């Protein structure tokens, strides 16, 4: 069913790109000359903006889909002759399509592994391989359904024990001791988790693994599994939120923008309890080092430091990347990708995603850094 819909989408997109290619063929000449001056002054860029044309197709993570919708709409308003498409097939599918050369950029919640980095060197022009650009930063909320309780404080160890079934009732001493004055019922805890393979699960289990002092005995994985006997798996963010909402005493995790009126957990960071917020989510990215496997300094692949003690940061944060080539052999493709990605990283682009999807805007420094990297991307 899902497959059929997706194949349908691919076909429509292919048909669309064919017809667009036909329209834009006559405009190709001006597009090339105009976009080679993208670094020019503001007055000149308006000129370039009007003449950039073509079709840009991406594929990948569904987590950034609503952000992507906002970016596409605003970008196409700026450049009426450009069509941007995005197929939310999932991170794995997006990377697959990017590495096979089917799309010029991919959206992904996770980082490329060594083998995929190697394939990217072959796929991209030159020897530079591919870069990760953090574009969509979103806090993940631990949500619960307890009547009359909006927020509770928990440390990572307690959360790990709850999700692994070692703590089974809400009035357990481990929970109560962190929440004096909150009336906790003696009811059982129902653990709700993502039954599908997802980047949200990956980030959540990575947080538990890193921050819980060994209370979480498993490795970070996209496929959540638990020993808790009172647990329910649900397919997708909406189903998790629905299940928690309809089950008194349930606890789960979901993208913070979808938490709605459910209670949320403030995580213990250092000595304080930090509720999720866009600012705190952006701070953890700024405070994290780049991954050891990163492809040079232009590859902004973060190894999020979940164990931080900086209480201005929210460690349970999902970073969704755009994966682009360090060099494109086709000038018009390079112009389209860099123009679009620059818009996404800009204050306007980040604000559009923040209002549409509740994501955390990139800090000004990070935004400027991404723009500088995009300026270096060359055409072969």
């Amino acid at each position: 069913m899902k497959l059929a819909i997706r194949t349908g989408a691919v076909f429509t997109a292919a048909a669309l790109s064919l017809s667009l290619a036909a329209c834009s063929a006559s405009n190709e000449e001006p597009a090339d000359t105009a976009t080679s001056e993208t670094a020019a002054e503001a007055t000149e860029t308006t000129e370039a903006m009007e003449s950039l044309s073509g079709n840009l197709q991406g594929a990948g993570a569904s987590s950034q889909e609503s952000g992507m919708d906002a970016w596409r709409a605003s970008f196409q308003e700026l450049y009426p002759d450009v069509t941007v498409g995005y197929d939310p097939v999932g991170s794995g599918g997006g990377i697959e399509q990017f590495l096979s050369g089917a799309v010029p950029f991919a959206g992904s919640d996770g980082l490329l592994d060594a083998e995929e980095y190697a394939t990217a060197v072959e796929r991209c022009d030159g020897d530079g391989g591919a870069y990760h650009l953090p574009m969509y930063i979103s806090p993940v909320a631990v949500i619960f359904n307890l009547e009359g309780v909006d927020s509770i404080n928990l440390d990572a160890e307690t959360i790990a024990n709850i999700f692994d079934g070692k703590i089974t009732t809400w009035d357990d001493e481990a929970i109560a001791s962190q929440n004096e004055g909150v009336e906790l019922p003696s009811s059982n805890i129902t653990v709700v988790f993502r039954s599908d393979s997802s980047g949200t699960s990956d980030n959540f289990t990575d947080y538990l693994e890193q921050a819980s002092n060994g209370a979480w005995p498993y490795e970070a994985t996209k496929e959540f599994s638990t020993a808790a006997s009172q647990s329910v798996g649900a397919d997708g963010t909406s189903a998790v939120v629905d299940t928690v909402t309809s089950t008194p005493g349930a606890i789960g995790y979901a993208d913070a923008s979808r938490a709605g009126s459910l209670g949320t957990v403030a995580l213990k960071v250092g000595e304080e309890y930090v509720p999720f917020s866009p600012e705190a989510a952006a701070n953890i990215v700024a405070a994290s080092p780049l991954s050891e496997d990163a492809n040079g300094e232009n590859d902004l692949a973060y190894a999020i430091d979940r164990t931080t003690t900086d209480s201005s940061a929210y460690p349970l944060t999902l970073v969704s990347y755009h994966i682009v080539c360090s060099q494109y052999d086709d000038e018009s493709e390079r112009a389209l990708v860099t123009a679009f990605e620059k818009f996404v990283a800009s204050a306007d682009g980040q604000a559009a995603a923040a209002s549409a999807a509740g994501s955390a805007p990139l800090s000004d420094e990070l935004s400027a850094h991404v723009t500088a990297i995009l300026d270096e991307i060359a055409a072969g």
Partner: protein
Amino acid sequence: MTTTEQSPGTEPASDYGTHPGAIANSIFKYLSTGAGSLILVTLAAVATFLLVEAWPAISAAGGDLGDKVSFIKPEDGQGLLEIIGFLVYGTVLISVIALLIGTPVSIGIALFISHFAPRRVAQGLGYLIDLLAAVPSVVYGLWGVAVLVPFLQPFYQWLADNFGWIPLFAPPESGEVFTGRVALSAGIVLAIMIIPIISAVSREVFLQTPKLHEEAALAMGATRWEMIRMAVFPFGRSGMIGATMLGLGRALGETMAVLMIISPGLTFSSHILQPNQHNTIAAYIALQFPEANALGVNSLITMGLALFLITLLVNMLARWVVSRRSEFSGAN
């Protein structure tokens, strides 16, 4: 001169050589032959695709597949073969639940429409049943998870309280059936989905029963039920089996409804009132596909191949049963 060289097979066509419909006739012959062989070509293409795409995963299954595919964990007893085993078990279990519930109800509906209901009611009911068959599975899934599952939960609790000593109905550890998103719910929703198919086909079969057989039975003093047992069932047996197998085919391959209802897990457990115990092949593929890498997709296609083989086996079995039974029915 040349006619003597023609093979016997083409002679009938040449007999009509002067007939105005001759060209149309031969065009039709080739078209229908083409349509017939298209089935074989499609089947062969699907089988080839599955085998070719599954091969990288099968050949790596003994080696480092677990390192490269996130959902395959040989160290946790979830290697490719083990997962396929769990999934085949889950698929068959849920389909069997669906058949056990769906078949008697469908036969009942079909008998009511064909032999008991007044003609006008029968017609209306027939349309309604056909309409049920047209409801997309995602709607059944949504309805199942939003309406049916919460509705069934107290009933499951009752079942667990009174019959929990039967392993089939054992409740979760705490003794409380805290969710209705279990294999039994998936089976019930699948049963509802296959009822229209089974009852529509059996209804048609029952209506074909020779009137003379029925009247003969009634004339010998049989009640209506005895008449159905003596005349309708023997005549319609192969048709009923065929209808059930059609239903089973839909149940085996159903994705959306199962995906939305069941809280999945990978075990050989018989506890159909506990969540996180079972999953079906189709639903598992849908859950893992979006995030799967190249080898992951190959592994999922291997599971698809397993489903393909099961469906093929079921159909061949049905064919065999039908052909064995046909000599006893009144159809010949």
